[in-house]
């Protein structure tokens, strides 16, 4: 952490957006440091896209304020947009144009100066690992290659902030890792990255994650801290046969706060796993469950996510 107080790359204060009676975003505040990768997680319709549109100046907030690099989005949306690169899950490429033609087109759209465009395109081709494929039509590229090209297009104008909307939907694991290596390199060069995603393995690549539910931020922390703190208890993996009876028995056992099938086992939430596991195993054996095994496991980000959103829903008196 630098000793010099610096302006955050993005600062959001008490942001609110209503569509008629519907509060899509309520009192959202957060700040993102330069070079930080922040993930947005949340159910469909939680408000992730609305926050992103507000940030890009595509929607006007009902209340609150957003600054990007110290510039107020409400006062000067054009200046903010010039500082933002956006990549959508659909990649928005022209599939009948070549790799080079797409880069030239987006360079024009983003107003890259004529004298700089040649060099920027070469940089983008190198970064995306597409050197030597400039003339390949985009429809002939595999998903991971399209994704890297879309990223190349989104950073031609050297944005300070990069917004990625479900960037690796439908991309294979090898390409996904390569993509994230590029994102980390950009972040190290000072680009601030916002990522909205449904995929927890993608969220694990972020420095911090904001969990959004019903227009509010319900958690904002590093993935490790969210995993550690989100659960109101400790998770165990319970094996036993038959699986159906095992699940019923666990659901009926008061110390178990939550139980769900996962593969060939049941994940169960206990207050303190080490103290309660022996009694749990004995209880299951007494219920006629065979081959019982109980083992403490580390919760995944998805476990944390599902539990937190579930608790929010209970707190709000059931699903809206």
């Amino acid at each position: 952490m630098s000793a010099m107080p610096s302006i955050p790359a993005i600062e959001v204060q008490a942001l609110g957006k209503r569509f008629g009676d519907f509060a899509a975003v309520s009192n959202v505040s957060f700040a993102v440091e330069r070079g930080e990768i922040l993930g947005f997680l949340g159910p469909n319709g939680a408000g992730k896209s609305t926050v992103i549109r507000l940030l890009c100046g595509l929607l006007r907030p009902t209340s609150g304020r957003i600054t990007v690099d110290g510039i107020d989005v409400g006062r000067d949306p054009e200046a903010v947009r010039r500082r933002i690169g956006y990549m959508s899950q659909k990649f928005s490429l022209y599939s009948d144009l070549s790799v080079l033609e797409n880069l030239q087109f987006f360079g024009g759209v983003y107003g890259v100066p004529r004298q700089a465009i040649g060099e920027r395109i070469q940089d983008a081709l190198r970064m995306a690992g597409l050197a030597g494929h400039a003339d390949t039509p985009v429809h002939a590229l595999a998903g991971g290659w399209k994704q890297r090209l879309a990223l190349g297009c989104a950073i031609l104008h050297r944005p300070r902030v990069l917004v990625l909307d479900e960037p690796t939907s439908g991309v294979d694991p090898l390409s996904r890792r390569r993509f994230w290596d590029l994102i980390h390199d950009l972040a190290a060069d000072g680009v601030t990255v916002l990522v909205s995603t449904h995929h927890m393995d993608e969220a694990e690549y972020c420095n911090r994650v904001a969990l959004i539910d019903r227009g509010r931020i319900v958690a904002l922390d590093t993935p490790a801290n969210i995993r550690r703190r989100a659960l109101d208890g400790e998770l165990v993996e319970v094996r036993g046969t038959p699986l159906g009876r095992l699940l019923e028995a666990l659901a009926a056992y008061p110390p178990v706060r939550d139980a769900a099938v996962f593969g060939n086992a049941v994940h169960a939430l206990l207050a303190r796993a080490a103290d309660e596991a022996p009694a749990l195993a004995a209880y299951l054996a007494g219920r006629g469950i065979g081959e019982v095994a109980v083992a403490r496991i580390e919760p995944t980000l998805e476990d944390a996510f599902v539990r937190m959103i579930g608790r929010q829903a209970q707190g709000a008196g059931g699903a809206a």
Partner: protein
Amino acid sequence: MNANEITVAATGLTKRFGPLTAVDGLDLAVRRGEIFGLVGPDGAGKTTALRMFAAVMAPDAGRVSVGGVDVVAEPERVRERISYMPQRFGLYEDLTVDENIRFYAELFAVPRRLREQRAARLLAASSMERFRKRLAGQLSGGMKQKLGLACALVHAPSIVLLDEPTTGVDPLSRREFWQILYGLRAEGVTLLISTAYLDEAERCDRLALLHGGRMLYCDTPAALRARMPGALAEFATPAPRQLRDALQGRAGVLGVLLVGNGVHVHLDQAGRLAELERQLRDSGVPCDGARLVPPSIEDLFVALLGGAGTQP
């Protein structure tokens, strides 16, 4: 009911598109009541294989039988027993949830007295009862996928083929979706599911890892993880890039991956860890500790496929 009964079997299954061999001599045997995952990158042949099992595409070579019926000889009889949910399931956006289910029930000739009962059960299982009168076009992505599944299940198939069913679905809906699949499995339904997401693959009973139309490995997730060559270590550090650069190329380091709060390092053997920590200390790279972590299916996949997938 024999638990080891094979319900979906392929031998030497092959499909070519011009010069491309999309599925190349695939041998596969799926047991009754099993959730079997077809896992692999884009272009691995997952969708093509599912289409051949579903009798919507004929193989160029090999044999495939589903529910004891030869798919090539009697495609119509196969279609009665199975349900196939393609990546874009054909929902009618201008019909309501109820109307979509009724449409598919009629299409599959479900007896009238069973229709209402099945629809109610499927909607309850997917927490969609409150949305029965809503137009399908107004549902979120996750709800559309759940409605697609309900429509695909309304004729009570004994074999269900699902092609990347949870792409774009949020984690809560995805959990519900999987709870429905586990419920079907408990009833003895056989499920074949393709996915590019390896955290999802961990939920299957067995997996086939496909690449370039061929099957590389087929086993349970736990057994596959045990095949991971070497060991995986997680380094906590405030300077991940510096640590990555310091470790890359060192003896015994097979791969380095930046993750949110640190660096994942694939080692040729677990014993390397202490040595690497010492080297980092000596070279002044900040490191808050390292520990061995269990590899995920994705780690395994990347380790096994390392250099592959470099063509556009």
